[in-house]
């Protein structure tokens, strides 16, 4: 298949050791656009937009940052944020750098935890990319929607 120069660069940056240690694709062999489309369909089923999810994730991140590295009890959820030194670019290649912030959100009700980075929030909002299956920071849209109790029943 013919690929534009941008596309070619794109795939390289998603590989291990380029921006993060194990890359963004995990063991997913699908094309980046197919992953985005498949995850987008899950959101559609629940009548949610990318920005809805990203806003909610940002909210938790901002609450967590206030307590520096400690745990923050938000009633139904417990949030903890780790902030490491340095900045990283987005693999989609637009200019700008993102701080290395990792957020843990634990739901007391379901006893489940999700983990995401500030970069994942950006990628969900801007590109609809939730990570390749099996990658370290992959968020499963359905898990996130259930944990954050967003959207309707879906089906």
């Amino acid at each position, binding site marked *: 298949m*013919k*690929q*534009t*120069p*941008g596309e*070619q660069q794109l795939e390289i940056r998603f590989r291990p050791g380029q921006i993060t240690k194990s890359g963004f694709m995990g063991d997913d062999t699908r094309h980046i656009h197919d992953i985005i489309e498949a995850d987008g369909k899950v959101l559609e089923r629940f009548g949610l937009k990318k920005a809805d999810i990203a806003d909610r994730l940002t909210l938790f991140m901002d609450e967590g940052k206030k307590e520096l590295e400690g745990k923050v009890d938000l009633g139904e959820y417990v949030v903890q944020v780790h902030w490491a030194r340095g900045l990283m670019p987005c693999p989609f290649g637009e200019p700008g750098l993102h701080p290395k912030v990792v957020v843990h959100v634990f739901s007391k009700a379901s006893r489940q935890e999700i983990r995401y980075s500030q970069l994942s929030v950006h990628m969900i909002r801007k590109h609809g990319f939730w990570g390749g299956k099996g990658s370290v920071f992959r968020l499963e849209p359905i898990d996130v929607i259930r944990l954050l109790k967003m959207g309707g029943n879906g089906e």
Partner: protein
Amino acid sequence: MEYLSPITIFFAAIFTSNILLTYFLGMCSFLSVSKQIKTAFGLGLAVTFVLTITSALNYIIYYTLLQPFGIEYLRYIVFIVLVAAVVQLLEMFIQRFSEVLYINLGIFLPLITVNCAILGVSLFMIIREYTFLQSVFFGAGSGLGWLLVIVAMAGIRERLNEQKIPPALRGAGIVLIISGIMAMGFVGFSGIVQIQ
């Protein structure tokens, strides 16, 4: 078949039998690189250059090597290899003298090799049994025709940027519709002169 003067073929290739709009060859890069007039013009020039050179070189090789030895069936391989070599040369040339154009064209520069218009022209000139001069003019004309259409399209698309286009039609959708309308416009020329 009556003999057509090289000049006639040259103009026919540009207008009445435009390689892009009547044969729909070379659509791929036409759709992708027609966003800015400047880059479109650069690619158009590159395609014209490659077309002219390769039609001449392929003509020579076909009639001095392939035909005398009776191995015309090899023409597909030989033509494409030659096209590839010319494109490589062109790539070095552009990289040296215009880095900006080189980055803007990106992958589409080496991909001129598989631009179907290039191989199409070389094969047409064999099928239509053109003479050497006719072939070169046909190549140059086709290239200029391609350049004309892609620049026109880039001009239209630059203006489209400010227009409200239904979301479903954005990108390739609207471009295909526009090229259809442009093709109809070019068909209007076809009464003037006919080449096959």
